[in-house]
């Protein structure tokens, strides 16, 4: 690689560019650090003076209160179950459907493609979908948040494009060996598709973990609510789970504590994904590019 030399004008341009990039990075990090530091602080100091870096006064009260609350754990448990089930169902259905549609000889390809594509642009909308789900008896069932969005046409086109990039020789070799479609698919095709499978799985998992709308409209039973709905009542509706603050005497103390609990809640709830994320980073580029190629 040639070591690039920049002219004076270029240097100015680059400096401005890097400053912008630096500002963007700082803008991402600062709020995160703020939340982390604030979560350990004494609520009264925090409200009056803002954050201080006086570590000697740090307390873990907020964490203890949040962690000892059962609703948070129920939310966690539900979110894990829904996200894993959704990821498995979605990825399996999507990978399966993409296979016939990736084959040039598949009869009815155009027809099925159109059937699927239409749903990307046109749909019944909120109420008709709600009525179908409710008529199927799925209200207050976890399948209401898992099934309706499980098949993603967009992800299917990504998998389809990826299959097409697999050398044809693989298929021909399998034909010679007399392997049927299922054997070929599971034993030969899928093992060479791990990058795209990893990315689709990550997207679906993160998507389900972070969403709240479907759960909000379909799951009323608090024992079935996923984490994001519990977070919603604490962070957005300012209604901390009752056990968290009820022992405080004055309303002011309760309000301050409720505020402090938000910070700890944010940290606790965001940790799992943020810890997982660097392990998946290596798949980002390959997977995203797989999907970016025009299908």
């Amino acid at each position: 690689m040639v070591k690039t030399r920049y002219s004076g004008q270029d240097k100015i341009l680059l400096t401005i560019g890097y400053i912008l990039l630096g500002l963007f990075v700082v803008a991402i990090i600062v709020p995160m650090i703020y939340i982390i530091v604030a979560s350990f602080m004494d609520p009264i100091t925090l409200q009056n003076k803002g954050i201080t870096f006086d570590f000697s006064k740090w307390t873990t009260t907020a964490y203890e209160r949040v962690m000892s609350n059962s609703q948070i754990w129920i939310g966690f448990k539900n979110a894990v179950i829904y996200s894993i089930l959704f990821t498995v169902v979605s990825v399996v259905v999507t990978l399966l459907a993409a296979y016939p549609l990736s084959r040039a000889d598949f009869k009815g390809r155009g027809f099925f493609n159109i059937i699927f594509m239409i749903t990307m642009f046109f749909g019944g909308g909120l109420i008709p979908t709600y009525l179908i789900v409710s008529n199927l008896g799925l209200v207050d069932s976890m399948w209401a948040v898992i099934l309706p969005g499980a098949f993603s046409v967009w992800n299917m086109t990504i998998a389809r494009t990826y299959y097409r990039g697999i050398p044809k020789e693989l298929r021909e070799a399998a034909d010679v060996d007399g392997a049927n479609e299922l054997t070929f698919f599971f034993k030969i095709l899928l093992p060479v598709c791990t990058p795209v499978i990893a990315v689709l799985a990550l997207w679906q998992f993160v998507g389900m973990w972070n969403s709240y709308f479907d759960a909000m409209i379909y799951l009323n039973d608090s024992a079935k609510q996923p984490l994001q709905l519990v977070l919603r009542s604490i962070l957005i509706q300012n209604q901390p789970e009752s056990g968290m603050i009820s022992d405080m005497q004055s309303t002011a103390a309760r309000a301050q504590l409720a505020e402090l609990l938000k910070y700890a809640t944010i940290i606790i709830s965001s940790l799992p994904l943020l810890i997982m994320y660097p392990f998946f980073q290596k798949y980002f580029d390959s997977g995203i590019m797989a999907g970016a190629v025009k299908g």
Partner: protein
Amino acid sequence: MNTNATTVPNQRQDKGFHNTMLYVKQHWQLYAIFLMPALLLTLIFKYAPMSGILIAFQDYNPFRGVSGSEWVGLKHFTRFLSSPDFMGYLANTLKLSVYGLLWGFPMPILLAFLLNRIQSTGIKKKIQLVLYLPNFVSVIVLCGIVRILLSVTGPLNLLMGTEINFMTMPEAFRSIYIISGIWQGAGWASIMYTASLSNASQELKEAAVMDGANILQQIKAVEWPAIKDMVVIQFILQAGNIMSIGFEKAYALQTDLNLPASEIIATYVYRKGLIDGDYSFSTAVGLFNTVINVILLVAVNKIVAKMNDGQGL
């Protein structure tokens, strides 16, 4: 002569049909195992609701069903279109997404150009790690952080020595929405541009550098062509989806007082339909939104195709 002329294509059709049946028989697994689950989910959760659109033309009563409810024609559409709120919600929706697109669309491209200039892969990887991070924060947590930072007793007010309640100001809503959106999404959206840029021919770039091209010239000759297609596709997709701006974030940033700016069609459909129980009216509003969205998508695709030498999506 006539009989001959008509029988020949018929025979061909029969043969074609026969071949198809033979193919399906031989490859039944492709239909019955591979395609079936996706097809069933699509029919049940996408196509069945489409028939439910009928209730937009009724005074739907859940106890009587579609067949027993009274047909009212376009009543709900005229009611919505002639209501004074309509223009407000439509404007809120359009402003939020058009401004969001104008401010948000160039950011990832700029980030990708800058990342591409960093020569140390170690530093580049670390910066990318930070840039992608907010994408993994949920909408609820993002809006929770926004509300904390902007609260009356929050750090921004403390820093400025003021007591402004940003979340209750309609005029602040769009900026909050768009800036937090860029904060969360720009880094992640830059991935595909970064990847295209690293695929750009290194030789071409070296040749340009040898010829003494400055940065702007390099961008014009090498880097822009490498990501142009991607930019076009992304633009069509985003511009075409202007009316389908998401419910989740707008709803999580709404307060009673900022509703004049924050009530968009998606949240209005929810409020009317599932909170007030006005199923028919809500469906009509949703249908109106979908139709506009389809029209926009087709229009944007046509316009871009014209500008891009006939290459649309």
